[in-house]
């Protein structure tokens, strides 16, 4: 568990991070969101002591991080950055095995761990182990970066805009994979991003920052339903908030039993997000959709008219809780 309480960071007279407090429970995915220069990266870098905090306390499993040796601490915490930071003169396999080697694992164990991680990240060993970073695409390089961060099986993963430099398609794919990875590995993740959609999709706890301070924190739905102020509201997409909200719920949660009338022509899977279903309605000029299960069997229907009459879901179905 990570806990920051009243943490500040000063660079000379400038207050980069001002009285920030938040907790990330074990296995939780926390996103620090904000515009550039809001102090979110600085906050992240204080957790593994790349920067030392000026005031307040940062606790790791209840122990102040200053009690640990900085080098030892960092070997226990995975770190992924936008520019990947892979060593250009080392092969992919050597890059991934860095932390286990620093921890003096026997070489056979390092070797098998590297292969295991390459499988996990979808990097065929035969094809990639001996490649050098400059021979990789952006997405592949970032996979190697994630594999390197996971190599020594740390409980905590810090990610600083890891997908920020990727094209939208690759980014979406890697986000999806990260989510799948997290559901298997249950790491405690702190993820910095300026992309609110990314944060809403991935995190179960959001910390919105502005000018070094925390403006609001909570689950994605809490923020969408009750933005604290105009800033958070505009951050969440202003009038498009409704759609973003729909993006976080599944069709299955709003589905009605099949009506005896003729089923609608357009079909959507029940696992689709409500947002995507609404898009299908607009595209097909229909206000009714047939919901199907993974075997393409109709299981229910979705009606625009009924959706609008649904009570305002204040204590909505939070995906993760």
């Amino acid at each position, binding site marked *: 568990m990570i806990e920051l309480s009243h943490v500040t960071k000063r660079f000379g007279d400038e207050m980069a991070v001002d009285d920030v407090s938040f907790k990330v429970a074990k296995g939780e995915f926390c996103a620090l969101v904000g515009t550039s220069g809001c102090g979110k990266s600085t906050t992240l870098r204080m957790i*593994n002591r*790349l920067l030392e905090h000026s005031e307040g306390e940062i606790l790791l499993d209840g122990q102040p991080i200053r009690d640990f040796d900085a*080098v*030892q*601490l*960092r*070997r*226990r915490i995975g*770190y992924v*950055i936008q*520019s*990947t*930071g*892979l*060593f*250009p*003169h080392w092969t992919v396999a050597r890059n991934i095995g*860095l*932390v286990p080697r*620093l921890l003096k694992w026997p070489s056979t164990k390092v070797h098998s761990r590297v292969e295991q991680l390459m499988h996990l990240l979808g990097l065929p060993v035969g094809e990639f182990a*001996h*490649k*050098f970073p*400059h*021979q990789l695409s952006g997405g592949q390089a970032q996979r190697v970066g994630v594999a*390197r961060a996971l190599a020594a099986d740390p409980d905590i993963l*810090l990610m600083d805009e890891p997908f920020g430099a990727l094209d939208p398609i690759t980014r979406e794919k890697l986000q999806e994979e990260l989510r799948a990875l997290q559901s298997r590995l249950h790491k405690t993740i702190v993820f910095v991003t300026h992309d609110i959609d990314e944060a809403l999709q991935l995190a179960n706890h959001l910390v919105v920052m502005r000018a070094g301070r925390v403006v609001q924190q909570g689950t994605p739905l809490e923020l969408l339903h009750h933005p604290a102020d105009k800033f958070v509201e505009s951050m969440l997409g202003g009038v498009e908030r409704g759609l973003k909200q729909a993006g976080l719920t599944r069709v299955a949660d709003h589905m009605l039993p099949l009506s005896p009338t003729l089923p609608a022509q357009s079909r959507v899977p029940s696992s689709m997000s409500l947002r995507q279903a609404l898009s299908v309605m607009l595209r097909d000029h229909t206000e009714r959709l047939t919901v199907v299960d993974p075997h393409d069997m109709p299981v229910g229907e979705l009606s625009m008219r009924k959706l609008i009459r649904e009570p305002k879901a204040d204590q909505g179905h939070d995906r993760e809780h």
Partner: protein
Amino acid sequence: MTVNTRAATQASRSPWQIGIPLVWLLLLWLAVTGMAQLEGFFRLFEPDVRSVIYSRVDFSLLLGRHLFVVAIAALVTITLGLASGIAVTRKKGRDFLPLVSQLASMGQTFPPVAVLALAVPVLGFGTLPIIVALMLYGLLPIVRNTLTGLQEVDVGIKEAARAMGMTSGQILRQVELPMAAPVIMAGIRTSVTINIATAALGATVGASNLGDPIIAGIVNGNTAYVVQGALLIGLLALSVDSTFEQVQRRLKADESPRNK
């Protein structure tokens, strides 16, 4: 330093390229051992003098002494240059960075002849003053390239290294120095090659080396001697320089290697 790395990689593998230093070394050896065979050629320069082949000291001995002076100077400059370049790019030594780079530049703006003139009264005639002059003169390229090489290492890479839990010593040895190696090697190459030529000045202060025939030739008005000294120094410089070039290519090839 602008050589395309991939082209360099391929070049380092062609036997033709690797053979270049060997060709220069062979020519050097031939010139040292067989200078007397060229008497007819040197006669063209000086038809009237009695002796056209410098013979006061054996050429191989002169070559050995020349190499000795350059090697000692190189050893000291490389050690000093690397150490100071590394020291001032560390956190603790950063304050000295401007000072060190200025001192190194001054060393090179100071003409070696002037260094010799100033060093002789203090150190006496012989080999020592020329070694001092070469050290001062050869320091700049090494310091400057060490600084450039280390400073060019991407900040993100250094930060990642730190974030992974590498100690500063590990970062220096495993990340910074290997990445800066091609640039540092280029500095060493420049320094040593320049000093091979500059060392000839030692002959003016009694350090016997390949500069001897040149000085003797100038004093006695014997162009043939001058040409012999210059020829040997030129061949030595080319041999050493092309050897360094191969080493440099090998380093670059290690850094950005081939496709599988």
